[in-house]
């Protein structure tokens, strides 16, 4: 494999750069609305270019999965979608990302993250009670009044399919929950501020198959009300939960299509090699 060139000019990159036109003319599925739209997005960690001219759509109320080997840029791209990279020194981005047509780089960052929530690989509950974990966001942004907070916590926990398991111990520490429950708590916490988009960065990588199945069921239920973007190393998970799948390699978006096309008959040899395990 070659290292990514500083000025990429391969056909893969060219394809990425012309992608919006292809999406509009050939690929854009009928009836889909664009929720997030990236155009020619480049990302650098210092002198290292981690993303090369990414152009793609994330469709409204759909699940979009990003797959690719470690270091391919999929998590970096996910983190640009709510500007989570901004805490990283020397990180810089150029290009455009629109959320419902608005430039996310011109939005106030906390407003953006209220609309585009994120759940990480390892469950990271606050060192607080289950109740306070969920109530934290609505309290600080004042979106729910004092008397409504109990109902809101219950509703968020129900949406995350956790209510029945925790309703009798809401004031116990969140650390007493199992890993799978903690991850659903983190999803409930993200849902508590009613995000329009939920970014999931390998949300099941530290969970057992039962907890994983619960999170996947949850993703199916949530997509009625939320747009979901998931990064996963588990290709079967992408195949199970996602409507659309993008394959990243060396900072480039190699292929983006309906999930069934990607896993049944991908157009690009690089995609085929990766998903059939013949990569590298």
């Amino acid at each position: 494999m070659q290292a990514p060139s500083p000025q990429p000019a391969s056909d893969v990159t060219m394809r990425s750069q012309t992608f919006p036109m292809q999406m509009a003319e050939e690929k854009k599925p009928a009836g889909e609305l664009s929720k997030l739209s990236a155009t020619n997005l480049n990302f650098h960690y210092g002198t290292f270019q981690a993303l090369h001219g990414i152009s793609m759509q994330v469709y409204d109320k759909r699940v979009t999965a990003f797959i690719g080997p470690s270091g391919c840029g999929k998590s970096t791209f996910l983190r640009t979608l709510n500007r989570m990279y901004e805490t990283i020194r020397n990180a810089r981005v150029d290009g455009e990302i629109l959320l419902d047509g608005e430039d996310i780089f011109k939005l106030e960052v906390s407003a953006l993250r209220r609309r585009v929530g994120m759940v990480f690989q390892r469950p990271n509950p606050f060192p607080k009670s289950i109740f306070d974990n969920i109530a934290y966001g609505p309290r600080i942004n004042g979106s729910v009044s004092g008397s409504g907070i109990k109902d809101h916590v219950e509703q968020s926990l129900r949406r995350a399919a956790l209510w029945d398991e925790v309703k009798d111990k809401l004031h116990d520490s969140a650390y007493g929950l199992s890993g799978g429950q903690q991850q659903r708590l983190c999803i409930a916490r993200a849902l508590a501020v009613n995000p329009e988009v939920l970014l999931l960065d390998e949300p099941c990588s530290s969970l057992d198959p039962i907890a994983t199945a619960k999170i996947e069921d949850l993703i199916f239920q949530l997509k009625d009300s939320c747009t979901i973007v998931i990064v996963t190393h588990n290709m079967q998970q992408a195949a199970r939960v996602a409507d659309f799948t993008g394959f990243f390699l060396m900072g480039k978006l190699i292929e983006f299509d309906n999930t069934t096309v990607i896993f049944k008959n991908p157009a690009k040899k690089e995609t085929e090699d990766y998903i059939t395990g013949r990569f590298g």
Partner: protein
Amino acid sequence: MRHFEQELEQLKGKLLEMSALVEASVQRSVAAVTQKDRSAAEQVLRDEARINALEMEIDEFAINLLATQQPLAADLRLVVAALKINTDLERMGDLSVHIAQRAVSLLSEPVIQPMVDVHHMSSLVESMVRKSLDAFVANDADMARSVLSSDDAVDSLRTASYHELVSFMEKDPRNIPQALDLIGITRSLERIADHSTNIAEDVMFLVKGIDVRHHAEARQ
């Protein structure tokens, strides 16, 4: 080669063994009819058990691969196509047995003149069988596509021979048993051609990922 790739090769190997057996059975059953070759007919009957056993073996192997390896993309298409081709091959084996049985019953009969166009039809069907299986072995979508166009010709020949045989029966009722055997044989040949067409369609799916069944390609 990874273990999974070795297993896929094993699957292909078993399917090739099955293909060779079935192709030979089709050829022998045709020879039994056209050359009145009793030993060919008997060999077809003997090989049926091996074909049936291989069908079960291939199904189990492919299902185990699906369950344990969760193949994707070209690997997925190979396992799915193998399952479908396996079913078609086993049915072709059964139809060869059927032809061989009819051939045995015709051995003692004088040939009614003129002999219906079984020769022409059987050579066309044998060519379809061979091409569809060669296309599978060589991953050759173009060769598979060439099989599809032959199916209509076989259907026409079968229809023509049916009308011819009906008129023989009308002419002389003593022709009825033999004509019925020949109708059964042409029907089985036509069904073998249909299964070859199915295999060719599966090869198109395997190689190109496209569905050409029931004119699906034209509709798209």
